[in-house]
């Protein structure tokens, strides 16, 4: 467990994503087009000093959230809904101004580095003159030092970095511009336990220094180790946003049946079999997306798609809670 330090400053809301949906325009046959919805309703917010994990299976489209915030969705994608950064609406122009500065990305792998440039040079990026270069170089050294990257690393090419070093380079690069929001897109797959632990502790450290972190992952163990809250992404919807502490015991504090199933399916928690599969993109049912797999479906679940509703600081999308709310 990577413990959270007390955050000194009062936290402020950095990012507010409300009801965004992302669709892709596809050609099916000839000139016939089809609009494929990949994210239907994604809502979450992040405050400074907080790590929010978005947990979803691979291929579920959760990385699109990162692309939407940074304004790098492909041309055939349509984005609707609202993304606010520090209370102001984030449009394409603003995204381009902020990305790489106040909003930074930790990409999935070293493949995102330029293989033909030395680490230090590409990390510093554009410089105006010698003076500027000196200043930026000094700052880079300072940040690299903080993450245990010695001076030799500056002159290495990406292929000469070990997995762990590459990880540190990606993390410290994201921090060079003193961002307020860091998006980490699947930072752990393919790493061994030690490297995962290290990456996660870097993420925690950032947050403790006041940065808001959006951690996009399919690895529930990683999410539970470092996040404050976990948003569960299922078939294009956020179905629950739970506190990390709710993932304990038998998971009795988790509200959505899928979150429950996910927790109890972990090898260390019973490895319990739960049947069924997430509906495919384009085959999403009318009512609740989880209806066919739900242990306690009601009649309304076939027709009524529940909204994400708040219950004591956590959120759940389930008709059971909507009804108990309605009828006391």
């Amino acid at each position, binding site marked *: 467990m990577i413990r959270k330090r007390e955050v000194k400053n009062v936290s402020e809301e950095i990012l507010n994503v409300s009801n965004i949906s992302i669709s892709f325009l596809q050609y099916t046959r000839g000139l016939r087009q089809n609009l494929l919805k990949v994210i239907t309703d994604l809502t979450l917010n992040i405050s400074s000093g907080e790590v929010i994990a978005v947990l979803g299976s691979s291929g*579920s489209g959760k990385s699109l959230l990162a692309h939407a915030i940074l304004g790098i969705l492909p041309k055939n994608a349509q984005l609707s809904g609202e993304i606010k950064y520090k209370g102001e609406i984030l449009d394409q122009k603003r995204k381009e101004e902020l990305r790489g500065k106040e909003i930074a990305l930790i990409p999935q792998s070293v493949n995102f580095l330029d293989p033909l440039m030395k680490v230090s040079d590409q990390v510093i990026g554009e410089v105006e003159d010698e003076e500027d270069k000196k200043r930026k170089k000094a700052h880079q050294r300072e940040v690299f030092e903080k993450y245990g990257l010695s001076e030799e690393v500056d002159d290495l090419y990406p292929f000469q970095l070990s997995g762990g070093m590459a990880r540190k380079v990606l993390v410290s690069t994201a921090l060079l511009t003193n961002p307020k929001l860091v998006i980490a897109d699947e930072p752990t797959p393919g790493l*061994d336990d030690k490297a995962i632990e290290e990456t996660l502790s870097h993420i925690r450290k950032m947050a403790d220094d006041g940065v808001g972190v959006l951690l996009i992952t399919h690895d529930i163990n990683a999410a539970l180790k470092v996040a404050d809250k976990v948003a569960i992404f299922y078939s294009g919807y956020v179905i629950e946003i739970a506190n990390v502490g709710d993932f304990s015991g038998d998971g009795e504090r988790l509200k959505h049946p899928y979150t429950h199933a*996910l927790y109890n*399916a972990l090898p260390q928690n019973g490895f319990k*079999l739960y049947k069924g599969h997430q509906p*495919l993109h384009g085959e999403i049912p009318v009512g609740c997306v989880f209806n066919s797999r739900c242990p306690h479906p009601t009649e309304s679940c076939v027709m009524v798609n529940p909204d994400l509703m708040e219950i004591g600081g956590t959120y759940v999308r389930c008709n059971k809670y909507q009804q108990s709310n309605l009828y006391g």
Partner: protein
Amino acid sequence: MELRGENLSFRYGSKNWIIKDLNITMKNNEIKGLIGDSGSGKSTLCKILAGYENNFEGSVTLAGLPLPKKGFNPVQLIFQHPEKTMNPKWRMKDSLYESWDVTDDLIEKFGIQRSWLNRWPNELSGGELQRFSVLRALSPRTKFLIADEITTMLDAVTQVQIWDLVTTIAREQNIGILVVSHDKELVNRICDDVVYLSDINNN
């Protein structure tokens, strides 16, 4: 029946040995776990055991004989990323039936929906694709499965579903499995026996 790797050594060119004098034996009624850190040679060993890598020293034998050079390979390797192993220009049914005449009963058991058969690989999620990879490999002629981190990229619910099916069918058909993973908890759950790569690798 035994799958046996003896004195296996491998390196790229004249670089350092990735694996050196490694011995491993599996029985076809056994589910064996193999744990190793990243870069420890797990995937290299998998490729050697399944006959994908020819440039190694030592020998791999199945029931005392070398692996067949052509025709169906009774040692089937399943990879971590199914989206990289499926032919992107084939519909799912073509990829599935290429391997063997998969029975409808098994398709249903695997939770593969009829509509998925006509889809392209890029339209399915990793979990759905991995069901196809596993089913493809479970031909009646298969004697051993080498499962190289096959559920690492999947959510916990799908992970249980896949392992529940694979282990049940393997036990029914006497297929031996090598479960390669970095997840000790998972390996302890499903395997009869666990070996650590660091213990059997002499590099």
